């Protein structure tokens, strides 16, 4: 059980790009449809709680499910599964990026990306505001 929880969250952590909200469909698929760990209503409650609590939604949901299914060990397994892919992948990229950062092509790419990132954050303001 512990291994299965760990493995499920490793999958969720590895195969979702874009974070919290992008993870929700995959979490639902694994937790509700495939493993039947929670029913639909409980899943909806879990998401509401994971959003209400501070911190990362993916991690909060991992804590809830781990706790529900296997207590403390389950919490550790799910949280580690949710964050390990991030930590490993980002460390590798950070080390690599430090060496190529001053490359003119990379710099040109990021000149295009920077205003897009600011636009993503600005658009988030409107999107969140419509959901108040």
């Amino acid at each position, binding site marked *: 059980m512990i291994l299965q929880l760990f493995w499920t969250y490793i999958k969720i952590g590895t195969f979702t790009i874009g974070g*919290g909200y*992008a993870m929700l469909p995959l979490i639902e698929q694994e937790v509700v449809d495939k493993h039947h760990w929670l029913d639909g209503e409980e899943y*909806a409650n879990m998401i509401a709680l994971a959003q209400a609590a501070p*911190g990362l939604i993916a991690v909060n949901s991992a804590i809830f499910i781990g706790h529900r299914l296997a207590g403390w060990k389950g919490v550790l397994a799910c949280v580690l599964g949710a964050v390990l892919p991030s930590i490993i*992948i980002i460390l590798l990229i950070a080390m690599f990026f430090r060496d190529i950062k001053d490359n003119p092509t990379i710099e040109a*790419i*990021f000149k295009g990306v920077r205003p897009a990132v600011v636009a993503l954050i600005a658009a988030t303001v409107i999107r969140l505001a419509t959901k108040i």
Partner: protein
Amino acid sequence: MTYLALIYVFLKVGLLGFGGGMAIISLIQGEVLSRGWLTQTEFVDIVAISQVTPGPVGMNCATYVGYAVGGVWGALLASVAIVIPSLVIMLTICYVYEAIRNHFQQNRTFQITMRVIRILVVLLVAHAAYTLMTPASFIDYTSWIIFAVVFVLMLLPLFKNAKRSTLNAKRSMLNATLSNPILLILLSGLAGWLLYA
């Protein structure tokens, strides 16, 4: 000393980070810029990389900032520190939830608290966006065109779904968040490469 500061900052971000990814990034931005740990450009690049790599965006950003400030140990400490408040609070919530499981979503206090939190999160993210609109990221008029295109594309799902049922709208919003930011960052990277290289 840097390690202690990193632990402090990311405990704080984990504790105050209501509202998910972007809200957490806004908090990290405030701390990192005010402490002079990174330049604005370095931070924006980290956010871009956090968006297009697997895993929760907030966690990616925390790990990366930790690495940039304090190497591998900094990355590990930041990643652990941001999770600790979640552990304490979410476990407490789990115990309470077992007791009051039924109909808590309809509870008035819960609804009001959530609404206040959502309003604060909007203000927080708005402040972050405003802070980033500087010449560091906007080098010429092309930058503003990229900004405008991405901004409008990100908001399109809002108009499309205005007439459909709430459930449908929620689901397509979810699908939209799934693909759009990543695709848009990759496309804007391509644009940058074509325009500036």
